[in-house]
């Protein structure tokens, strides 16, 4: 009961920014289907990618041969910084506002003084975050679907990108559980967002650095971005071990968040 009331409350507070985020993602992925079919752009990209140093391609997290195809270019759209930033905005916003933000603003007093367990507060925040994240991932895929339905590309179907959208959702869902933990530990939304942004940026940089610098290659599994490889997902679907990593991170972060938040002063 209280979880559903709180869930609706979070949705009401965050639904407005969800709309432009979703629209932006859909529009971007729709545009990528246009980019992928433009021969001039494709040939330009092909030339650019062939000329690019390996470090740059590592940064793009792309396989050269697959990226220069129409299918590959659409896949690039799912690792583009624009998409990652859109997803990161939601990932930071909802969990950090739902716990640390409410504490910092003082409205947590009103919520926690009612028959609501701390676990219910976390569950409601998690539900609102995951639901919104699902809408964003779906919007991105919808952009691909609409683009490909409007002007089909030979050998490319939108359904192949559904697992990519799922992987995008899973990656940021895992980050979101970390955001819940960070939020449960802090008293201000700003502080929580700063910590989370640092963690996400650090994870991204670690993944890149570990790919281009062999000496720290063994550290790459520590980055959640290591487990998000759209081109591989397009080729062979979601990998079970990646799912396990996301699940383990989510379970660990949520467990600590539940225990800590239940015991802390508000």
């Amino acid at each position, binding site marked *: 009961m209280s979880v559903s009331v709180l869930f609706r409350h979070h949705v009401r507070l965050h639904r407005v920014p969800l709309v432009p985020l979703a629209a932006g993602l859909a529009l971007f992925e729709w545009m990528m289907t246009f980019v992928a079919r433009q021969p001039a752009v494709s040939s330009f990209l092909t030339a650019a990618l062939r000329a690019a140093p390996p470090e740059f391609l590592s940064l793009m997290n792309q396989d050269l041969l697959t990226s220069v195809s129409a299918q590959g270019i659409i896949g690039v759209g799912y690792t583009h910084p624009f998409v990652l930033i859109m997803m990161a905005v939601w990932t930071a916003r909802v969990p950090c506002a739902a716990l640390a933000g409410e504490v910092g603003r003082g409205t947590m007093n009103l919520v*926690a003084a*009612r*028959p609501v367990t701390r676990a219910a507060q976390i569950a409601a925040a998690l539900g609102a975050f995951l639901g919104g994240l699902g809408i964003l991932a779906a919007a991105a895929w919808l952009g691909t679907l609409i683009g490909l339905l409007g002007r089909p590309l030979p050998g490319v179907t939108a359904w192949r990108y559904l697992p990519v959208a799922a992987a995008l959702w899973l990656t940021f869902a895992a980050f979101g559980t970390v955001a819940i933990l960070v939020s449960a530990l802090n008293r201000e939304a700003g502080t929580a967002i700063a910590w989370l942004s640092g963690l996400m940026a650090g994870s991204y940089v670690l993944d890149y650095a570990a790919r281009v610098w062999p000496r720290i290659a063994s550290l790459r599994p520590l980055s959640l971005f290591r487990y998000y490889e759209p081109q591989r997902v397009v080729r062979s679907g979601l990998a079970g071990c990646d799912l396990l990593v996301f699940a383990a991170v989510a379970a660990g972060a949520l467990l600590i968040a539940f225990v800590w938040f239940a015991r802390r002063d508000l």
Partner: protein
Amino acid sequence: MSDAPLRTRGLGKRYGRVQALDDLSLDVEQGEVFGFLGPNGAGKTTTIRLLLGLIRPTAGEASVLGQPVSSPAVAWRAEVGFLPGDMTFWPRLSGLETLDFLAALAGRPPDGRAALLDRLALAATELARPVRTYSDGMKQKLGLVQALQCSPRLALLDEPTKGLDPLVQHGFYEIIADLKADGATVFLSSHVLSEVERVCDRVGMLRAGRLVSVGDVEALRRAERRRVRADFTADVDPTTLAHFGELVVGHPRRVELLVARAEIPALVARLGMLPLADLVVERPSLEVAFLEHYR
């Protein structure tokens, strides 16, 4: 557990080296209006937050409506109304959305809302506006409505009249009287003695985190003394006035006395016979008045 709706034993809260509350043992009975007095930083808000389980005690225990505050059960909070000391809301929600959300969260119908809105003069048009457009006084009114709209058995109100104009304060006093008539228990913190005198049955005085004393408001009212200062144009014998009360200052041209309220008319009549230049009658500070009676 005790039948008292509110009970603490040795309750304490320490923040690092700061002892915010120390060894609070208190019972508030059913239907009682209990005033918790003290200056800023005395520990009033800490006490209320401990009673709600918002913060955890570092010593002692508390029970509210028969339930230990530290237990994982939270159902008892449905019957508790809470007004925080610093009233903040979600700025983009309207007043009505705020009230609906908080009533839904309590899981009880807001059957007292209409009467509260009427008493506190909060119009429907004001409730339709976003809370960010509210003045501090309106936020306080909205805070009172959210705390009491579900007809709680126990109301915990932290400085409830802060920011209210005198007319609305009067409405608030009526609300407290109604709650008492309905058998609800009210625990309110304040640093305004007149307010506590007006609505409370008993008061507790908190100072630097310690409960200094607990007493009956009626007895406090009877015993409260005024500080009377009289200046004269010619020398008088201060000892001739000493029998009216306690002589604090006894100069020939200035006399200061602590006088029981009942003695004021006789003293004024006597002073009228002397070469009086000026007369000041002051209420003692809250702490002085309280401690004077209960120490």
